[in-house]
């Protein structure tokens, strides 16, 4: 019997075309991931090169003073892009993964936007996570919507009922055949992806695979449940597609609208204005208060003074620059707090939406989510502070430029090494699937006893 069913499945042209199309789209998505990773690597190497070249130029230029040189030269920090992010690009195409910053105020520098075609950002990337979240469910729906109804509508159901094998068992076998075929496409794609994108075989990749598998399982469970209601083919197709539209379009978009309205972020604009005024207005104010504020912030530099009577000095200059950051610090923190809140509430809601939950989980595993960006922002602030504190005394002391070992300043990298939360990522999908299978079983049992 099983063999017959498999033959039957393999012979149905529509289903095979669907599988091939899915597989092919999956391959395209892997290539998109590859292009993305190459672009990222290119950006990083170009930035590293640029940094080196421009340091060289400025050193040859003989600016004379340490303070003036550091006005110009910039130091790069890269947010390491793991290869797995080629599978789920997430927000990596919105936030730049490398920043070049000088030691002047950071606020004016840290929000610079990467150049990207906004239409492409709007359309979104055809990455693997897209294929998984949008297209795999469609295949599952196409494979399962008439699992039972086609037998009824084709008149073969009564034949099945007269067989010695219980009809539910036959249906279950049909489902298993479809499940195995779809899952093998998924696994094959992931294996190809692993090799093609040189993704290391680590816990993140394993978790990624599991999330993907359970997401597909969820859709099979859902389809099985709908089948168990024993409606007509058209009704099944309609209700499954309706769930698909709800889960992948309407609900996420509504939640997004809700989150944005709930936590507007005007602080973003305040930071721009406050940092600009914090620094630029100091030129026209008495020097003493600025310097005092600087010393309050950094007591370790209390011994330095601005030379009496001089209209300009680097100590004063960098104190003014510091004010650009200091006066925007409150808004900056408030903004980051809002971003965290937006992230938190949407992730909480996502526990009830398998599509969104899967996207969030894959983005988290691929380090392309909001938390990764926030982590990078914090690292960037720390990096900038470290460079500042390293150079401040040298500038204030007037240490000659030649005494510094400039070759040591190469592009630096940060890694997002947060812990993997297996439980939170897999549990909602597993629970959802189990619940649906359970409900379907009851329906099936009821119908059999009828």
């Amino acid at each position, binding site marked *: 019997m099983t063999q017959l069913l498999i033959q039957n499945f393999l012979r149905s042209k529509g289903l095979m075309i669907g599988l091939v199309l899915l597989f092919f789209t999956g391959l*395209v998505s892997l290539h998109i991931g590859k292009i993305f990773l190459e672009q990222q690597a*290119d*950006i990083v190497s*170009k930035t590293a090169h*640029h940094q080196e070249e421009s340091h060289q130029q400025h050193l040859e*230029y003989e600016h004379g003073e340490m303070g003036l040189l550091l006005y110009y030269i910039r130091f790069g920090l890269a947010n390491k892009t793991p290869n797995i992010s080629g599978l789920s690009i*997430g*927000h990596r195409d*919105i936030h730049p993964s*490398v920043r070049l910053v000088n030691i002047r105020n950071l606020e*004016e520098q840290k*929000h610079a*936007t*990467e150049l990207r*075609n*906004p*239409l*492409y*950002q709007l359309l979104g990337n*055809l990455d693997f996570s897209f294929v998984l979240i*949008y297209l795999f469910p469609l295949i599952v729906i196409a494979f399962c919507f*008439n699992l039972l109804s086609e037998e009824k509508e084709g008149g073969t159901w009564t034949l099945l009922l007269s067989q010695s094998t219980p009809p539910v068992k036959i249906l279950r076998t049909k489902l298993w055949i479809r499940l195995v075929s779809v899952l093998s496409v998924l696994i094959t794609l992931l294996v190809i992806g692993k090799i093609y994108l040189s993704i290391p075989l680590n816990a993140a990749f394993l978790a990624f695979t599991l999330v993907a598998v359970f997401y597909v399982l969820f859709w099979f469970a859902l389809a099985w449940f709908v089948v168990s209601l024993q409606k007509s*083919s*058209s009704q099944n*197709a309609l209700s499954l*597609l309706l769930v698909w*539209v709800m889960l*992948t*379009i*309407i609900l*996420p*978009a*509504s*939640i*997004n*609208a809700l989150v*944005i*309205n709930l936590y*507007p*972020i005007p602080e*973003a*604009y*305040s930071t*721009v*204005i406050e940092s*600009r005024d914090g620094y*630029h*207005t100091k*030129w*026209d104010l008495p020097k003493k208060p600025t310097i005092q504020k600087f010393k309050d912030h950094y007591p370790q530099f209390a011994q330095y003074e601005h030379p009496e009577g001089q209209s*300009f000095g680097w100590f004063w200059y960098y104190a003014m620059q510091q004010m650009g950051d200091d006066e925007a610090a409150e808004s900056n923190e408030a903004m980051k707090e*809002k971003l965290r809140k*937006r*992230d938190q509430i*949407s992730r909480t809601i996502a526990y009830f939406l398998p599509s*969104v939950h899967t*996207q*969030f989980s894959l983005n988290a595993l691929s380090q392309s*989510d*909001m938390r990764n960006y926030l982590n990078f922002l914090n690292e960037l602030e720390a990096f900038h502070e470290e460079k500042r504190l390293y150079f401040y005394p040298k500038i204030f002391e007037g240490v000659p430029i030649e005494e510094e070992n400039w070759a040591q300043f190469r592009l630096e990298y940060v890694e997002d090494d947060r812990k993997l939360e297996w439980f939170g990522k897999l549990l909602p999908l597993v629970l959802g699937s189990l619940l649906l299978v359970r409900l379907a079983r009851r329906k099936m049992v009821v119908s059999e006893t009828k």
Partner: protein
Amino acid sequence: MRFPILQLLSKHTFQHLLKNSGTKWLIVLFNALLFFALLAAYSSSLEHTHTLDHYSHEVREKWENNPDKHPHRMAHYGYVAFRQKYPLSFFDYGMDSYLGNAVFLEAHRQNTINFSEASLSNGLLRFGEISAALILQLLVPLLLFFWGFALIAGEREQGTLRLLLAQGTSWSELILGKTLGLFYLSLTLLLPSVLLALGLLLFHPLFAQTSDVILSFGLLAAGYLIYLFIMSLLAVWVSAICKTSKTALIQLIGCWLFFTLMLPKLAQVTGQVFYPSPSKIEFDTAVEHELIQQGDSHNPDDPHYTALKDSLLAAHQVSSTKDLPFNFSGYVMREGERLSTETFRRHKLHLMERYQQQQNLLRWTAVVNPYIAIKNLSMAMSGTDFLAYRNFQDQTEEYRYDLAQTMNELQIKHISNNASSSADKKAVISQQYWKDFADFQHQFLSFKAMAKQEALSIFSLLFWLAGLLFLANFSTKNLKAF
């Protein structure tokens, strides 16, 4: 074609569809969704306008209240410009959320426009944003397909189709009549939201100053009318050519997926592969390299600026720049600003053209994909497309240049060559000059400019309309009654 028959058929179809209690519920649900989308977007657009007013006001006030000082300090103090939302943007978010909202404008450098909604959002945004446009473009067609897939194929299955045709109804009457019935049903979704949108638009605080937005709205509404008619016709046409209603449904869903999901992605992937665009670091490096070659105004030995200096000294027959009748360093900075701006703008233009190429690829698919046609048209009319953004970008850059050069002119004219530094008392001019420099006002594109850009989208919609009508009228020979 007999109009009474069409009327009868359309009325019958409309009533038949409406009889189903599920249909009524769906209409209520979709209207609720549309109203929610419109009101939520409207309130956030008002909030945005309000926030921007507050901050623009603050920027202006701070600018004017700067004390007397050296004009170059003001050039560095600069300005912050904000992007206003077009009054109709609440109808269609378009690219809006991926576009920057605030930019710091200063002398010597062109900063990026930052703080797009996307940069402040997590992955949720990528699922799309609920707007009237999304519902009407994406979901309503799906609904029409559900309502329409059995309109003819169903009658065929039940055998009533033969009766209809035997009574003398022609195929084209049948198709058009049923299409009209389905189309009327779609109007129960379109009209209330169009009316609500019109009402909201009239009360928009920016409505008074952008009166031609009403023309945009007219074209937008017309576009959706045509689009929904096309989708109704498509549903009925497919239902006519398919043997069973099940195949009709599957084919319609296939069309929907192809139009809304596959084709746009395909065009995007192709564009990405064939028209790669530079990253920011590549762009910046290219500009920087060219600027270094042009000369460095800060370098006393730079050939370009030495030549400039020598020619000035010769022309005014003086031996030192200190004796020139105008401020020399202001003169040099004006030259530097001119050169660097020219270079930057040239590179920027290249980049924008590249983006345009990428977008055109998608734009042309409108001919085979009515979804893209309405998407582009709707985005343009709502002022949330790339053209509107480029217009804002150009305005800010124009303003920035104007600000820098005005400050340079002031320096050339009013600052003595003997001033020791910008802190010198002699190097200070009155704050009245700051007040004289006009505020930044984001001007929206005119309706004409928007409509011109969308000629292709309008053409594509009409092309689809004509094409389907042609099919429905003239290629009905192969259609079967059973």
